[in-house]
């Protein structure tokens, strides 16, 4: 079983450079090959979800423990890793498949697919790495290729957005590297499990608390939590649409939220102070993000601001769980809350990915992103309109869709934990979300009278097959994922991931083996 772990990095990297080489001779190679390898990885992560019960540990290079010192680089797959791998590769596959038609109008398609594969490899690497410095390396791989992908259109706006993203991304990398350096200084190891063991046995020093603050700032920048969010609306709205859906749907989760969860649950001991900070950041993101979003008229910018808000829900859910665990409260409440957060993470990947693909389809046919100039597209683009409707209902929490259930779980957990204000805020944000998506629906797909498209002479029809396929697939997932509240389904997919976080102290022992 250990054999499968490196494949998540090796296959997309091999695919990236194969399509760079063969793409010089066969123009269509990268286009198809990327989808094929991402479909393969999706299948592999599904297979692992159903078979892996105990965490898999691979020591790179075969170096065994030297006494009690882990000298090898560890690659670890546990419940949370598999859960993230499934999200990354599934959304990656659908975005790549969507790109087949969408990217035809761009030059240098091969470079696009090469960068796409490197970005996926980087995110997979972050998720399976059990070593904090390797997390940094893989994170830079994903981040740097995403800088290039944001600037892919090479227009003025894209370059500006990419530059802003690079400056802030560079800042965050600096913070993270400094934090890792401080940790290495005080614990003299980089292995997450070993760091955690040493912190537990030595107790906390000021240095560790400082490293925690720095790491929270660094990964908070990558996850675009609210005081650090300035780069996100520009970067996510000017990238090509499949990339926007990868960035918003997966990247901020894999290299931001996931690492925050992994480090602050499994590496550092959970303390009340840090959990309070994380909960406050989550609440701030949730409320401020949606208030910034509702006034936007650029459709992709509106979606980008909603990413901040929805990630706030995820962090809020997990933060409440952390608070309960830190106060030694009821573990079942903590479990419920963290499950809600992680469930919302998957749901957000699906519906935000879909909404960006919809925005891309509208832009592909009309070339317009301003909602004031759009209107009446529902008759001409039925697939786009109906899938977008289901995603909008899902993000605003209308009952049969997945977003409703995850928000409900978070709200119930907040009430059970006694944080009534937070639960009221969560409901309030959900209502404003509904309002802003009603705005999207009305001005983009309905509202035929004010449509200026007819007079400007743009002929609109439904988008090509590959784009439709990805959108329909995600729209179906929006409903199918609500099945995750059924206990037997939840136990396979969600519960292992939640267990890793709730039984945070067990990680070190299971990975190191002593």
């Amino acid at each position, binding site marked *: 079983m250990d054999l499968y*772990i*490196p494949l998540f990095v*090796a296959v997309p990297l091999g695919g990236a*450079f194969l399509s760079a*080489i063969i793409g*010089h001779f066969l123009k269509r190679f990268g286009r198809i090959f990327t989808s094929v390898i991402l479909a393969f990885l999706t299948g592999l992560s599904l297979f692992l979800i159903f078979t892996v019960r105990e965490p898999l540990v691979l*020591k*790179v290079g*075969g170096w065994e423990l030297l006494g009690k010192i882990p000298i090898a680089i560890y690659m670890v797959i546990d419940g949370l890793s598999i859960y993230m791998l499934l999200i990354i590769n599934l959304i990656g596959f659908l975005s790549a498949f969507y790109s087949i038609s969408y990217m035809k109008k761009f030059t240098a398609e091969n470079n696009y697919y090469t960068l796409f594969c490197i970005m996926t490899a980087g995110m997979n690497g972050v998720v399976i790495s059990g070593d904090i410095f390797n997390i940094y390396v893989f994170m830079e791989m994903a981040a740097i290729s995403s800088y290039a992908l944001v600037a892919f259109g090479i227009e003025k706006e894209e370059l500006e957005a990419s530059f802003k993203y690079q400056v802030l991304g560079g800042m965050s990398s600096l913070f993270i590297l400094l934090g890792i350096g401080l940790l290495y200084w005080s614990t003299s190891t980089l292995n997450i499990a070993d760091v955690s063991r040493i912190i537990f046995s030595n107790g906390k020093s000021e240095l560790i608390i400082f490293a925690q603050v720095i790491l929270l700032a660094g990964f908070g920048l990558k996850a675009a939590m609210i005081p650090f969010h300035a780069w996100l609306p520009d970067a996510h709205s000017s990238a090509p649409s499949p990339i926007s859906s990868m960035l918003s749907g997966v990247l901020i989760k894999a290299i931001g939220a996931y690492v925050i969860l992994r480090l602050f649950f499994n590496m550092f001991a959970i303390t009340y102070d840090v959990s309070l900070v994380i909960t406050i950041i989550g609440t701030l993101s949730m409320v401020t993000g949606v208030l910034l979003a509702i006034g936007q008229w650029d459709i992709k910018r509106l979606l980008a601001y909603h990413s901040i808000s929805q990630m706030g829900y995820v962090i809020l859910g997990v933060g409440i769980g952390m608070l309960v665990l830190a106060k030694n409260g009821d573990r079942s409440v903590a479990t419920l809350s963290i499950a809600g957060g992680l469930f919302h993470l998957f749901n957000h990947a699906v519906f935000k990915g879909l909404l960006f693909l919809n925005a891309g389809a509208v832009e592909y046919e009309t070339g317009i992103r301003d909602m004031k100039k759009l209107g009446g597209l529902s008759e001409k683009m039925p697939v786009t309109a109906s899938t977008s409707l289901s995603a909008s209902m899902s993000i605003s929490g209308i009952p049969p869709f997945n977003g409703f259930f995850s928000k409900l779980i978070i709200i119930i957990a907040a009430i059970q934990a006694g944080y009534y204000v937070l639960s009221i805020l969560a409901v309030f944000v959900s209502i404003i979300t509904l309002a802003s998506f009603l705005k999207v629906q009305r001005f983009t797909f309905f509202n035929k009278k004010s449509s200026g498209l007819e007079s400007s002479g743009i002929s609109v029809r439904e988008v090509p097959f590959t784009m439709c396929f990805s959108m329909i697939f995600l729209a179906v997932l929006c409903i199918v994922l609500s099945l995750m509240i059924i206990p037997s389904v939840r136990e396979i997919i969600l519960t292992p991931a939640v267990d890793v976080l709730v039984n945070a102290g067990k990680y070190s022992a299971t990975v190191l083996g002593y």
Partner: protein
Amino acid sequence: MKGMTVIVKKVTELMCGVIFLYGIYIIIHGHLTPGGGFAGGVIIAGSFILLILSFGSDFLALKKEETGSSLIESSAILTFLIIAVLGMIIGGTGVFFKNFLPGGTIGKLISAGVIPLYNIAIGMEVAAAILTIFLALLIYKDEVLK
């Protein structure tokens, strides 16, 4: 870009072969002495860049050169990856990055298993990548700014 004077051209002609050989020396002694793939790769790229700077780029088909160097770059990384994955197959234990070749005597040129192979792949990759960046800047200056 125009070339420089006869003096510069002659000195470069004499020097760049030596620099190139020194880069190769650094790469293949990577497991024995300081330096290795990255340092040697930079030196090799430096010898090419020196030639282009002194003789000028007017005689070069820049696009074609850039395609070539980026092809070499990609295949070098692919070689690296293939050696890493071969460790999973040949080692028999399914370990990524397994050192599957015999270690040899410490201090000899041919020793340390697969590490010299990794060094050579990295050297090729770094040399080709730096040359590609340099050529891309030249192409930008020659074609886009005009």
